[in-house]
Protein backbone atom coordinates (compact mmCIF):
# COMPACT_ATOMS: atom_id res chain seq x y z
CA UNK A 1 0.00 0.00 0.00
CA UNK A 2 1.36 3.49 -0.95
CA UNK A 3 1.33 5.62 2.23
CA UNK A 4 1.70 9.34 2.89
CA UNK A 5 5.12 8.58 4.39
CA UNK A 6 6.19 6.89 1.16
CA UNK A 7 5.04 9.95 -0.79
CA UNK A 8 7.13 12.18 1.50
CA UNK A 9 10.20 10.02 0.97
CA UNK A 10 9.70 10.03 -2.80
CA UNK A 11 9.31 13.82 -2.73
CA UNK A 12 12.58 14.18 -0.82
CA UNK A 13 14.40 12.04 -3.34
CA UNK A 14 12.90 13.98 -6.23
CA UNK A 15 13.85 17.28 -4.56
CA UNK A 16 17.44 16.10 -4.23
CA UNK A 17 17.48 15.24 -7.92
CA UNK A 18 16.06 18.65 -8.89
CA UNK A 19 18.54 20.44 -6.62
CA UNK A 20 21.37 18.51 -8.26
CA UNK A 21 20.20 19.68 -11.70
CA UNK A 22 19.66 23.25 -10.51
CA UNK A 23 23.14 23.47 -9.02
CA UNK A 24 24.71 21.95 -12.13
CA UNK A 25 22.91 24.59 -14.20
CA UNK A 26 24.19 27.46 -12.06
CA UNK A 27 27.73 26.20 -11.61
CA UNK A 28 28.65 24.75 -14.97
CA UNK A 29 27.97 21.13 -14.16
CA UNK A 30 29.23 20.88 -10.59
CA UNK A 31 27.79 18.26 -8.22
CA UNK A 32 26.28 19.33 -4.92
CA UNK A 33 28.34 16.79 -3.00
CA UNK A 34 30.55 18.53 -0.47
CA UNK A 35 29.20 21.94 -1.50
CA UNK A 36 25.60 21.74 -0.31
CA UNK A 37 24.27 19.88 2.73
CA UNK A 38 21.39 17.41 2.34
CA UNK A 39 18.88 19.84 3.78
CA UNK A 40 19.57 22.32 0.96
CA UNK A 41 17.08 20.19 -1.01
CA UNK A 42 14.49 21.94 1.14
CA UNK A 43 14.90 24.79 -1.37
CA UNK A 44 12.97 22.72 -3.90
CA UNK A 45 10.32 21.78 -1.33
CA UNK A 46 9.93 25.47 -0.43
CA UNK A 47 9.71 26.42 -4.12
CA UNK A 48 6.99 23.80 -4.60
CA UNK A 49 5.00 25.22 -1.67
CA UNK A 50 5.51 28.81 -2.87
CA UNK A 51 3.73 28.21 -6.17
CA UNK A 52 6.55 26.72 -8.20
CA UNK A 53 5.28 23.11 -8.24
CA UNK A 54 4.77 23.10 -12.01
CA UNK A 55 8.34 24.34 -12.59
CA UNK A 56 9.68 21.71 -10.18
CA UNK A 57 7.79 19.05 -12.15
CA UNK A 58 9.32 20.36 -15.41
CA UNK A 59 12.77 20.28 -13.81
CA UNK A 60 12.15 16.73 -12.68
CA UNK A 61 11.30 15.84 -16.26
CA UNK A 62 14.69 17.24 -17.32
CA UNK A 63 14.21 20.95 -18.12
CA UNK A 64 15.47 23.08 -15.25
CA UNK A 65 15.38 26.47 -17.03
CA UNK A 66 11.75 27.44 -16.18
CA UNK A 67 12.49 26.80 -12.49
CA UNK A 68 15.69 28.90 -12.69
CA UNK A 69 13.77 31.77 -14.28
CA UNK A 70 10.96 31.54 -11.78
CA UNK A 71 13.38 31.59 -8.83
CA UNK A 72 15.21 34.62 -10.25
CA UNK A 73 12.07 36.62 -10.98
CA UNK A 74 12.16 40.02 -9.25
CA UNK A 75 11.16 41.29 -6.82
CA UNK A 76 12.40 38.68 -4.38
CA UNK A 77 10.49 40.48 -1.64
CA UNK A 78 7.38 38.74 -2.99
CA UNK A 79 8.77 35.33 -2.02
CA UNK A 80 8.14 33.53 1.28
CA UNK A 81 10.84 34.01 3.91
CA UNK A 82 11.95 30.38 4.13
CA UNK A 83 12.50 30.29 0.36
CA UNK A 84 14.55 33.50 0.59
CA UNK A 85 16.67 31.95 3.34
CA UNK A 86 17.33 28.95 1.10
CA UNK A 87 18.11 31.13 -1.91
CA UNK A 88 20.56 33.30 0.05
CA UNK A 89 22.56 30.26 1.15
CA UNK A 90 22.20 28.36 -2.11
CA UNK A 91 23.56 31.22 -4.24
CA UNK A 92 26.40 31.81 -1.77
CA UNK A 93 27.37 28.13 -2.12
CA UNK A 94 27.29 28.54 -5.91
CA UNK A 95 29.51 31.60 -5.66
CA UNK A 96 32.03 29.75 -3.50
CA UNK A 97 32.09 26.90 -6.01
CA UNK A 98 32.86 29.30 -8.87
CA UNK A 99 34.96 32.11 -7.38
CA UNK A 100 38.37 30.62 -8.16
CA UNK A 101 37.61 29.67 -11.75
CA UNK A 102 34.82 31.92 -13.01
CA UNK A 103 34.85 35.13 -10.95
CA UNK A 104 32.27 36.96 -13.06
CA UNK A 105 29.76 34.14 -12.72
CA UNK A 106 30.58 33.95 -9.01
CA UNK A 107 29.93 37.68 -8.66
CA UNK A 108 26.55 37.12 -10.24
CA UNK A 109 25.81 34.46 -7.63
CA UNK A 110 27.00 36.78 -4.82
CA UNK A 111 24.61 39.41 -6.18
CA UNK A 112 21.68 37.00 -5.94
CA UNK A 113 22.71 35.90 -2.46
CA UNK A 114 22.83 39.52 -1.28
CA UNK A 115 19.46 40.23 -2.88
CA UNK A 116 17.87 37.30 -1.06
CA UNK A 117 19.34 38.46 2.29
CA UNK A 118 18.21 42.01 1.64
CA UNK A 119 14.64 40.89 0.92
CA UNK A 120 14.67 38.55 3.92
CA UNK A 121 15.94 41.29 6.23
CA UNK A 122 13.22 43.65 5.03
CA UNK A 123 10.60 41.02 5.91
CA UNK A 124 11.99 41.11 9.49
CA UNK A 125 9.67 38.63 11.27
CA UNK A 126 11.36 35.43 10.03
CA UNK A 127 14.86 36.43 11.08
CA UNK A 128 13.65 38.02 14.33
CA UNK A 129 11.85 34.77 15.25
CA UNK A 130 14.91 32.70 14.35
CA UNK A 131 17.15 34.90 16.51
CA UNK A 132 14.69 34.70 19.38
CA UNK A 133 14.61 30.91 19.15
CA UNK A 134 18.40 30.59 18.89
CA UNK A 135 19.34 33.02 21.64
CA UNK A 136 16.38 32.52 23.95
CA UNK A 137 15.21 35.24 26.32
CA UNK A 138 18.15 37.48 27.24
CA UNK A 139 18.55 38.95 30.65
CA UNK A 140 19.81 42.44 29.92
CA UNK A 141 19.28 44.91 27.17
CA UNK A 142 23.03 45.24 26.80
CA UNK A 143 23.54 41.52 26.28
CA UNK A 144 20.75 41.67 23.75
CA UNK A 145 22.36 44.54 21.89
CA UNK A 146 25.74 42.80 21.83
CA UNK A 147 24.40 39.56 20.46
CA UNK A 148 21.47 40.23 18.23
CA UNK A 149 21.83 41.30 14.63
CA UNK A 150 18.92 43.47 13.51
CA UNK A 151 17.25 41.61 10.61
CA UNK A 152 17.92 44.42 8.14
CA UNK A 153 21.65 44.22 8.96
CA UNK A 154 22.06 40.50 8.33
CA UNK A 155 22.85 41.26 4.67
CA UNK A 156 25.82 43.31 5.93
CA UNK A 157 27.30 40.08 7.34
CA UNK A 158 27.65 38.87 3.75
CA UNK A 159 28.87 42.28 2.58
CA UNK A 160 31.51 42.17 5.32
CA UNK A 161 32.50 38.65 4.29
CA UNK A 162 32.90 39.78 0.68
CA UNK A 163 34.97 42.73 1.85
CA UNK A 164 37.29 40.36 3.73
CA UNK A 165 37.55 38.07 0.70
CA UNK A 166 38.55 41.03 -1.48
CA UNK A 167 40.98 42.39 1.08
CA UNK A 168 42.65 38.99 1.48
CA UNK A 169 43.27 38.93 -2.29
CA UNK A 170 44.66 42.47 -2.49
CA UNK A 171 48.24 41.16 -2.66
CA UNK A 172 47.90 38.28 -5.12
CA UNK A 173 44.89 39.78 -6.98
CA UNK A 174 43.26 36.34 -6.92
CA UNK A 175 40.04 35.69 -8.90
CA UNK A 176 38.02 35.21 -5.71
CA UNK A 177 38.85 38.80 -4.73
CA UNK A 178 37.68 39.97 -8.13
CA UNK A 179 34.42 38.02 -7.67
CA UNK A 180 33.88 39.71 -4.30
CA UNK A 181 34.68 43.18 -5.64
CA UNK A 182 32.38 42.76 -8.61
CA UNK A 183 29.61 41.54 -6.34
CA UNK A 184 30.09 44.54 -4.07
CA UNK A 185 30.06 46.80 -7.10
CA UNK A 186 26.73 45.51 -8.36
CA UNK A 187 24.64 46.55 -5.37
CA UNK A 188 22.26 48.58 -7.53
CA UNK A 189 21.23 45.35 -9.23
CA UNK A 190 20.99 43.72 -5.79
CA UNK A 191 18.52 46.35 -4.59
CA UNK A 192 16.53 46.08 -7.81
CA UNK A 193 16.35 42.29 -7.66
CA UNK A 194 15.35 42.37 -4.00
CA UNK A 195 12.71 45.06 -4.54
CA UNK A 196 14.36 47.11 -1.79
CA UNK A 197 13.28 50.56 -0.67
CA UNK A 198 15.55 53.52 -1.54
CA UNK A 199 16.69 53.72 2.09
CA UNK A 200 17.66 50.03 2.16
CA UNK A 201 19.43 50.40 -1.18
CA UNK A 202 21.34 53.45 0.05
CA UNK A 203 22.51 51.71 3.22
CA UNK A 204 23.74 48.72 1.25
CA UNK A 205 25.46 50.97 -1.27
CA UNK A 206 27.41 52.84 1.40
CA UNK A 207 28.57 49.68 3.15
CA UNK A 208 29.53 47.92 -0.10
CA UNK A 209 31.43 50.99 -1.31
CA UNK A 210 33.32 51.21 1.97
CA UNK A 211 34.41 47.56 1.68
CA UNK A 212 35.35 47.90 -1.98
CA UNK A 213 37.39 51.02 -1.34
CA UNK A 214 39.31 49.36 1.51
CA UNK A 215 40.28 46.39 -0.66
CA UNK A 216 41.24 48.49 -3.69
CA UNK A 217 43.24 50.90 -1.52
CA UNK A 218 45.13 47.93 -0.09
CA UNK A 219 45.96 46.66 -3.59
CA UNK A 220 47.10 50.11 -4.74
CA UNK A 221 49.08 50.71 -1.56
CA UNK A 222 51.52 48.00 -2.66
CA UNK A 223 52.11 49.85 -5.94
CA UNK A 224 52.30 53.15 -4.08
CA UNK A 225 54.97 51.79 -1.72
CA UNK A 226 57.10 50.61 -4.64
CA UNK A 227 56.76 54.01 -6.34
CA UNK A 228 57.74 55.76 -3.12
CA UNK A 229 60.78 53.57 -2.82
CA UNK A 230 61.79 54.28 -6.43
CA UNK A 231 61.30 57.98 -5.81
CA UNK A 232 63.60 57.84 -2.79
CA UNK A 233 66.29 56.29 -5.00
CA UNK A 234 65.68 58.93 -7.67
CA UNK A 235 64.56 56.22 -10.08
CA UNK A 236 60.95 57.27 -10.54
CA UNK A 237 61.34 58.34 -14.17
CA UNK A 238 63.14 55.15 -15.16
CA UNK A 239 61.28 52.57 -13.06
CA UNK A 240 57.91 54.26 -12.66
CA UNK A 241 56.30 52.71 -15.71
CA UNK A 242 57.22 49.14 -14.79
CA UNK A 243 55.94 49.66 -11.24
CA UNK A 244 52.75 51.40 -12.31
CA UNK A 245 51.92 48.68 -14.82
CA UNK A 246 50.74 46.59 -11.90
CA UNK A 247 47.96 49.15 -11.48
CA UNK A 248 46.59 48.02 -14.85
CA UNK A 249 46.24 44.53 -13.38
CA UNK A 250 44.63 46.01 -10.26
CA UNK A 251 42.22 47.89 -12.54
CA UNK A 252 41.17 44.66 -14.25
CA UNK A 253 40.93 42.84 -10.93
CA UNK A 254 38.71 45.56 -9.49
CA UNK A 255 36.28 45.40 -12.40
CA UNK A 256 37.60 48.69 -13.87
CA UNK A 257 36.99 50.69 -10.74
CA UNK A 258 37.03 54.47 -10.96
CA UNK A 259 39.21 54.79 -7.86
CA UNK A 260 42.05 52.99 -9.68
CA UNK A 261 41.73 55.33 -12.65
CA UNK A 262 41.87 58.39 -10.38
CA UNK A 263 44.85 57.06 -8.47
CA UNK A 264 46.76 56.18 -11.65
CA UNK A 265 46.20 59.58 -13.28
CA UNK A 266 47.43 61.21 -10.09
CA UNK A 267 50.61 59.10 -10.05
CA UNK A 268 51.22 59.45 -13.78
CA UNK A 269 51.05 63.22 -13.43
CA UNK A 270 54.12 63.22 -11.17
CA UNK A 271 56.19 60.90 -13.38
CA UNK A 272 54.88 62.44 -16.58
CA UNK A 273 55.99 65.94 -15.63
CA UNK A 274 59.44 64.66 -14.73
CA UNK A 275 59.80 63.18 -18.23
CA UNK A 276 58.19 66.24 -19.81
CA UNK A 277 60.68 68.58 -18.16
CA UNK A 278 63.52 66.33 -19.36
CA UNK A 279 61.92 66.42 -22.84
CA UNK A 280 62.05 62.60 -22.87
CA UNK A 281 59.19 62.27 -25.34
CA UNK A 282 59.76 58.61 -26.18
CA UNK A 283 59.86 57.69 -22.52
CA UNK A 284 56.69 59.71 -21.89
CA UNK A 285 54.95 57.98 -24.80
CA UNK A 286 55.97 54.56 -23.44
CA UNK A 287 54.86 55.57 -19.96
CA UNK A 288 51.36 56.53 -21.09
CA UNK A 289 50.72 53.72 -23.56
CA UNK A 290 49.40 50.98 -21.19
CA UNK A 291 47.06 53.40 -19.42
CA UNK A 292 45.19 54.83 -22.39
CA UNK A 293 42.06 52.68 -21.81
CA UNK A 294 42.01 54.00 -18.24
CA UNK A 295 42.10 57.63 -19.43
CA UNK A 296 39.28 56.93 -21.86
CA UNK A 297 37.22 55.30 -19.14
CA UNK A 298 37.77 58.12 -16.63
CA UNK A 299 37.09 60.78 -19.26
CA UNK A 300 33.83 59.07 -20.22
CA UNK A 301 32.78 59.02 -16.55
CA UNK A 302 33.52 62.74 -16.18
CA UNK A 303 31.73 63.59 -19.42
CA UNK A 304 28.68 61.63 -18.23
CA UNK A 305 28.68 63.20 -14.78
CA UNK A 306 30.05 66.75 -14.56
CA UNK A 307 29.97 66.61 -10.72
CA UNK A 308 33.12 64.46 -10.94
CA UNK A 309 35.07 67.67 -11.26
CA UNK A 310 37.75 66.75 -8.70
CA UNK A 311 39.67 64.53 -11.11
CA UNK A 312 38.85 66.28 -14.36
CA UNK A 313 42.07 68.28 -14.28
CA UNK A 314 44.30 65.20 -13.76
CA UNK A 315 42.47 63.38 -16.51
CA UNK A 316 42.74 66.34 -18.91
CA UNK A 317 46.49 66.50 -18.29
CA UNK A 318 46.83 62.89 -19.48
CA UNK A 319 45.26 63.87 -22.80
CA UNK A 320 47.58 66.87 -23.01
CA UNK A 321 50.56 64.54 -22.50
CA UNK A 322 49.19 62.22 -25.20
CA UNK A 323 48.83 65.19 -27.52
CA UNK A 324 52.40 66.28 -26.77
CA UNK A 325 53.93 62.92 -27.69
CA UNK A 326 51.74 62.18 -30.71
CA UNK A 327 53.25 62.56 -34.19
CA UNK A 328 50.10 62.83 -36.27
CA UNK A 329 48.63 66.36 -36.28
CA UNK A 330 44.96 65.32 -36.42
CA UNK A 331 45.39 62.87 -33.55
CA UNK A 332 47.23 65.54 -31.55
CA UNK A 333 44.32 67.88 -32.03
CA UNK A 334 41.79 65.17 -31.14
CA UNK A 335 43.62 64.56 -27.83
CA UNK A 336 43.74 68.29 -27.12
CA UNK A 337 40.03 68.61 -27.88
CA UNK A 338 39.36 65.72 -25.46
CA UNK A 339 41.41 67.42 -22.75
CA UNK A 340 39.33 70.60 -23.04
CA UNK A 341 36.08 68.62 -23.18
CA UNK A 342 36.99 66.77 -19.98
CA UNK A 343 38.11 69.93 -18.19
CA UNK A 344 37.03 73.12 -20.00
CA UNK A 345 39.16 75.31 -17.70
CA UNK A 346 42.35 73.25 -17.96
CA UNK A 347 45.11 75.75 -18.73
CA UNK A 348 47.48 73.40 -20.53
CA UNK A 349 44.65 71.84 -22.48
CA UNK A 350 43.45 75.23 -23.70
CA UNK A 351 46.99 76.32 -24.53
CA UNK A 352 47.83 73.21 -26.55
CA UNK A 353 44.51 73.23 -28.37
CA UNK A 354 44.77 76.96 -29.16
CA UNK A 355 48.26 76.41 -30.52
CA UNK A 356 47.09 73.52 -32.73
CA UNK A 357 44.17 75.59 -34.00
CA UNK A 358 46.63 78.34 -34.96
CA UNK A 359 48.73 75.76 -36.81
CA UNK A 360 45.63 74.68 -38.74
CA UNK A 361 44.70 78.29 -39.51
CA UNK A 362 48.21 79.10 -40.68
CA UNK A 363 48.29 76.04 -42.94
CA UNK A 364 45.06 77.16 -44.57
CA UNK A 365 46.16 80.79 -44.91
CA UNK A 366 49.57 79.92 -46.39
CA UNK A 367 47.84 77.94 -49.13
CA UNK A 368 46.00 81.11 -50.19
CA UNK A 369 48.80 83.50 -51.19
CA UNK A 370 47.43 84.33 -54.64
CA UNK A 371 43.82 83.21 -54.68
CA UNK A 372 41.59 83.37 -51.62
CA UNK A 373 38.92 80.74 -51.26
CA UNK A 374 36.17 82.41 -49.25
CA UNK A 375 34.98 79.25 -47.49
CA UNK A 376 38.52 78.36 -46.41
CA UNK A 377 39.11 81.91 -45.27
CA UNK A 378 35.98 81.69 -43.12
CA UNK A 379 37.26 78.47 -41.62
CA UNK A 380 40.63 80.04 -40.85
CA UNK A 381 38.93 83.03 -39.23
CA UNK A 382 36.86 80.70 -37.04
CA UNK A 383 39.98 78.78 -36.00
CA UNK A 384 41.80 81.97 -35.03
CA UNK A 385 38.76 83.28 -33.15
CA UNK A 386 38.46 80.02 -31.22
CA UNK A 387 42.20 79.96 -30.45
CA UNK A 388 42.01 83.50 -29.13
CA UNK A 389 39.01 82.65 -26.99
CA UNK A 390 40.75 79.58 -25.59
CA UNK A 391 44.07 81.29 -24.84
CA UNK A 392 44.27 85.03 -25.55
CA UNK A 393 47.92 85.25 -24.44
CA UNK A 394 49.07 82.63 -26.98
CA UNK A 395 52.44 83.59 -28.45
CA UNK A 396 51.54 82.50 -31.98
CA UNK A 397 48.38 84.61 -32.16
CA UNK A 398 49.91 87.93 -33.41
CA UNK A 399 51.63 86.19 -36.28
CA UNK A 400 48.47 84.26 -37.28
CA UNK A 401 46.35 87.36 -37.06
CA UNK A 402 48.70 89.39 -39.27
CA UNK A 403 48.75 86.54 -41.83
CA UNK A 404 44.97 86.52 -41.74
CA UNK A 405 44.86 90.26 -42.41
CA UNK A 406 47.24 89.91 -45.32
CA UNK A 407 45.16 87.15 -46.90
CA UNK A 408 41.96 89.17 -46.48
CA UNK A 409 43.55 91.87 -48.63
CA UNK A 410 44.49 89.49 -51.38
CA UNK A 411 43.38 90.75 -54.84
CA UNK A 412 41.61 87.57 -56.05
CA UNK A 413 38.93 85.69 -54.24
CA UNK A 414 36.63 82.87 -55.36
Amino acid at each position, binding site marked *: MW*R*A*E*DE*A*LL*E*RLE*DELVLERLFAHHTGGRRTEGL*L*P*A*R*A*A*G*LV*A*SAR*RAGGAAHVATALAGDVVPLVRWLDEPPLSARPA*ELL*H*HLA*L*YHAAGARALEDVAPDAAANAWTRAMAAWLALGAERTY*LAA*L*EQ*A*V*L*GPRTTARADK*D*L*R*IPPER*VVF*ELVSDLGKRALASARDLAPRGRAALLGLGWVDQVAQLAGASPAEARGLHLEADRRRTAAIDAALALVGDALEEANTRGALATEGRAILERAVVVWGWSGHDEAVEQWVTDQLGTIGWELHRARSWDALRRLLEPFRPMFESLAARIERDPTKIAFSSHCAQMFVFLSDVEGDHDTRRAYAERAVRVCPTHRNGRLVLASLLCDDALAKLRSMTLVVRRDELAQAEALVARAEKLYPQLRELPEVKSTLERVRKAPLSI
Partner: protein
Amino acid sequence: MENPFERYDLDPREGIQAITERLRELAEDATDPAERERIRAAWEELTVHPARRLRAALFAFPETRPPLAGPPPAVRARSVESRPPSLYEMAARPSVRAALGRVEAPLAASDPLDDI
Protein backbone atom coordinates in the same frame (compact mmCIF):
# COMPACT_ATOMS: atom_id res chain seq x y z
CA MET B 1 34.61 25.04 9.64
CA GLU B 2 31.54 23.35 8.17
CA ASN B 3 28.29 24.65 9.64
CA PRO B 4 27.70 22.42 12.70
CA PHE B 5 23.92 22.71 12.44
CA GLU B 6 24.10 21.19 8.97
CA ARG B 7 26.87 18.72 9.68
CA TYR B 8 25.11 17.16 12.66
CA ASP B 9 21.57 17.74 11.41
CA LEU B 10 20.65 20.01 14.32
CA ASP B 11 17.70 22.36 14.40
CA PRO B 12 18.93 25.78 15.61
CA ARG B 13 15.47 26.59 16.97
CA GLU B 14 15.50 23.74 19.46
CA GLY B 15 17.86 25.46 21.89
CA ILE B 16 21.04 24.54 23.73
CA GLN B 17 19.58 21.58 25.61
CA ALA B 18 18.49 19.76 22.47
CA ILE B 19 21.83 20.56 20.81
CA THR B 20 23.72 19.18 23.79
CA GLU B 21 21.56 16.06 23.91
CA ARG B 22 21.96 15.27 20.22
CA LEU B 23 25.71 15.90 20.21
CA ARG B 24 26.14 13.75 23.32
CA GLU B 25 24.40 10.87 21.52
CA LEU B 26 26.61 11.34 18.50
CA ALA B 27 29.75 11.50 20.64
CA GLU B 28 28.76 8.30 22.44
CA ASP B 29 28.20 6.54 19.11
CA ALA B 30 31.44 7.81 17.58
CA THR B 31 34.24 5.28 17.50
CA ASP B 32 36.88 7.58 16.02
CA PRO B 33 38.53 9.82 18.67
CA ALA B 34 39.08 12.54 16.05
CA GLU B 35 35.37 12.58 15.22
CA ARG B 36 34.55 12.72 18.93
CA GLU B 37 36.87 15.71 19.21
CA ARG B 38 35.12 17.40 16.27
CA ILE B 39 31.76 16.86 17.93
CA ARG B 40 33.09 18.37 21.15
CA ALA B 41 34.40 21.40 19.24
CA ALA B 42 31.01 21.82 17.54
CA TRP B 43 29.26 21.60 20.91
CA GLU B 44 31.57 24.27 22.29
CA GLU B 45 31.05 26.45 19.24
CA LEU B 46 27.28 26.27 19.54
CA THR B 47 26.77 26.42 23.28
CA VAL B 48 29.59 28.51 24.74
CA HIS B 49 29.43 31.39 22.27
CA PRO B 50 25.87 32.63 21.66
CA ALA B 51 27.00 35.07 18.99
CA ARG B 52 28.65 32.26 17.04
CA ARG B 53 25.58 30.08 17.55
CA LEU B 54 23.43 32.83 16.08
CA ARG B 55 25.73 33.29 13.10
CA ALA B 56 25.83 29.55 12.46
CA ALA B 57 22.03 29.42 12.69
CA LEU B 58 21.60 32.27 10.22
CA PHE B 59 23.95 30.64 7.74
CA ALA B 60 22.51 27.11 8.04
CA PHE B 61 19.94 25.92 5.53
CA PRO B 62 16.55 25.75 7.24
CA GLU B 63 14.89 22.34 7.41
CA THR B 64 11.94 22.58 5.03
CA ARG B 65 11.99 19.10 3.54
CA PRO B 66 8.88 16.95 4.02
CA PRO B 67 9.25 15.13 7.34
CA LEU B 68 10.06 11.46 7.12
CA ALA B 69 8.09 8.91 9.09
CA GLY B 70 9.15 5.34 9.85
CA PRO B 71 9.95 2.84 7.16
CA PRO B 72 7.16 0.72 5.63
CA PRO B 73 5.91 -2.11 7.88
CA ALA B 74 8.18 -5.12 7.72
CA VAL B 75 6.97 -8.09 5.68
CA ARG B 76 5.79 -10.82 8.06
CA ALA B 77 8.32 -13.57 8.50
CA ARG B 78 7.37 -16.96 7.09
CA SER B 79 6.09 -19.38 9.69
CA VAL B 80 8.12 -22.23 8.26
CA GLU B 81 11.80 -22.04 8.14
CA SER B 82 13.48 -21.78 4.82
CA ARG B 83 14.63 -25.12 3.39
CA PRO B 84 15.00 -26.74 -0.03
CA PRO B 85 11.67 -28.04 -1.45
CA SER B 86 10.96 -31.72 -1.14
CA LEU B 87 10.05 -33.96 -4.10
CA TYR B 88 6.47 -33.86 -2.90
CA GLU B 89 6.36 -30.12 -3.11
CA MET B 90 7.91 -30.17 -6.54
CA ALA B 91 5.49 -32.68 -8.04
CA ALA B 92 2.47 -31.33 -9.86
CA ARG B 93 -0.83 -31.62 -8.08
CA PRO B 94 -3.56 -33.71 -9.77
CA SER B 95 -5.54 -30.56 -10.53
CA VAL B 96 -2.50 -29.02 -12.18
CA ARG B 97 -1.80 -32.15 -14.19
CA ALA B 98 -5.39 -32.09 -15.35
CA ALA B 99 -5.09 -28.51 -16.35
CA LEU B 100 -2.00 -29.39 -18.35
CA GLY B 101 -4.12 -31.88 -20.35
CA ARG B 102 -2.86 -35.19 -19.04
CA VAL B 103 -5.48 -37.90 -19.01
CA GLU B 104 -6.41 -38.54 -15.46
CA ALA B 105 -6.30 -42.24 -14.61
CA PRO B 106 -7.65 -43.62 -11.39
CA LEU B 107 -4.97 -43.73 -8.78
CA ALA B 108 -3.26 -47.08 -8.77
CA ALA B 109 -1.64 -48.50 -5.72
CA SER B 110 1.62 -48.30 -7.60
CA ASP B 111 1.27 -44.59 -8.39
CA PRO B 112 4.59 -43.20 -7.21
CA LEU B 113 2.97 -40.03 -5.94
CA ASP B 114 1.16 -42.04 -3.34
CA ASP B 115 4.44 -42.93 -1.73
CA ILE B 116 5.55 -39.40 -1.22
